């Protein structure tokens, strides 16, 4: 997932849990036989072997080009001049402990804001009574969905700058004096970039899940005169909690691996450890500390990833 692409891994349809409610029972698939049938030409080869041969190339790519380098990033973190040691970590903490905290705070704050906004937008899309307002909202909110991070970085770098369009508009409208104009190209810029790009993704998942819950409970609450905010918090949200969690975890992992946004919006210290990793390699060829930082970011996300994978396994074993 965590790439820099349009969705950076977040194909609207992909995260398997997002559509958990619509998963069909597995019996369907089990009772259905293989393609070749008993009299097929391949029948002298067991179907399982054919199946394995068809899947093997894809698995090999993931193994060789993702899992192997992932393992070597872990071993590389402990490699100090050819021997095993914790030197890279000592150095990483000495140089970048502030940035580690900075990264964690930015990513957690962004996740919280993404969650809040996606609940608000998704809630209105589900419970809104004015069809036109819902349609307008649905049309507007999605735009950043497929915009690549690198483009988001470029757009916001010019928009949020001290002399950027945003401040200029505020000054022109009389909302701000030119002296009060300040640059948002620091931690705030990074948070804005993440929230701007990731909210539509989580909202899309959340609105989908909200649309598929049982409408009768909502209607019943409405008939009892419950306010919409209350319906959202007490009836809708508990039912889509899983989807929200998965969306936020995927966003968390994405934000932890985006390089372009911190590089373009805020490359000076304090910055995110993704930018530090790139710097260690480009400026010093220092793979040890870069890998140590990588392992630290892996540890931060593995907490999130564990939750995600555990959910997936649970869904698959159903």
């Amino acid at each position, binding site marked *: *997932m*965590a*790439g*820099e692409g*349009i969705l950076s*891994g977040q*194909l609207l*349809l*992909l995260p*398997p849990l997002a*559509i*958990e409610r*619509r998963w069909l029972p597995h019996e369907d698939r089990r009772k259905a*036989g*293989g*393609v*070749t049938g008993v009299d*097929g030409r391949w029948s002298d080869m067991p179907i*399982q072997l054919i199946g394995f041969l*068809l899947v093997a190339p894809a698995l090999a790519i*993931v193994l060789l*080009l*993702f899992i*192997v*380098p992932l393992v*070597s990033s872990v071993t590389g973190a402990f490699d100090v001049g050819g021997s095993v040691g914790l030197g890279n970590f000592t150095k990483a903490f000495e140089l970048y402990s502030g940035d580690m905290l900075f990264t964690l705070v930015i990513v957690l704050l962004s996740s919280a804001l993404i969650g809040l906004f996606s609940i608000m937008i998704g809630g209105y899309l589900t419970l809104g009574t*004015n069809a036109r*307002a819902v349609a*307008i909202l649905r049309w*507007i909110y999605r*735009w950043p969905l*497929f915009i*690549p*991070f*690198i*483009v988001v970085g*470029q*757009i916001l770098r*010019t928009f949020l700058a001290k*002399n950027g*369009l*945003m401040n200029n508009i505020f*000054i022109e409208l009389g909302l701000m004096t030119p002296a009060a104009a300040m640059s948002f190209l620091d931690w705030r810029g990074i948070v804005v970039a993440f929230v701007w790009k990731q909210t539509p993704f989580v909202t899309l998942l959340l609105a989908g899940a909200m649309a598929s819950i049982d409408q009768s409970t909502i209607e019943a609450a409405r008939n009892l005169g419950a306010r919409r905010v209350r319906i959202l918090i007490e009836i809708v949200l508990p039912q889509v909690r899983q989807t929200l969690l998965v969306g936020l975890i*995927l966003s968390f*992992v994405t934000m*932890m*691996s*985006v390089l372009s946004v911190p590089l373009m919006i805020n490359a000076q210290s304090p910055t995110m450890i*993704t930018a530090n*990793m*790139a710097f260690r*390699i480009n400026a010093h060829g220092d*793979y040890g500390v*870069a*890998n140590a930082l990588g392992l630290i*970011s*892996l540890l931060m*996300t593995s907490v999130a990833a564990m939750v995600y*994978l555990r959910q*997936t396994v649970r869904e698959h074993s159903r």
Partner: protein
Amino acid sequence: MSFQIDWKWIPRGIVLGLLAFIVFGPLTNLILWAVAERWYFPHVLPLKYGFSFWANVFSPRGNAMASLATSVLIAGLTVIVSLGLAIPAGYALARLRLPLRGLILLALLIPQAFPNLPVYVNIARIFYQYGLNGTILGVVLVHVTHGLVYAVWIATAAFSAIDRELEEAARSMGATALRGFWDVTLPIAAPGLLASAIFVFLESLDEFTGTYFVGAPDVTTLPLLLYTAGSGGNYQIASITALILLVPSIAFMFVVERFLRSDVLSKVGH
């Protein structure tokens, strides 16, 4: 009654207007930068509009055209390789009884569950040993790894959504398994596969981090050009490049639902 509704449009209008500003403000800014000839503080809008930077970008000696060609070549190869791997895998996962099917799907998900920056760093190191750094092939391989997850999952969903009886009908009329697949299954799955092809293409077109470590400086794709131009303070060139990347992405957002019918969508991850 109608009076009340009118009043309600005031808060609605304010909120929607604010949201529109948040979403479209930065996008407008990008378009302004792309057509600005001169724009400096304290002017709210560009002083002079024009397309001279476009002429520069698209001139034969401008490197944008070369980057665009490189990007499209890499994305095209990535689609071919990804789908070449994903179609058999998706078919097997959808149709054949595989042992450890859940585990296989999970293994394909791993690239989604970990930040891939440390992975790219080490791929670059491994590729260096094999002379793959700075080559188109190296970059394609990195993009394939990234795009494969989607390709396999969508292909699996597309094949799962097809009625098995159609294939069986073809088989009962004497078609071989391969022919049944080629003449019956593949054409029906085509819209879903096309969607995954477009998706993988766009992911590759927009990929930055992997290309930055594996491709640069020998392979310059559009995102790398955008990054270099932006770092050099050349906002016009950066904005024009960003716009080139933006258009296909936004176009895809509007058509994606037409390609992926709901019966396929409901099978994703199944």
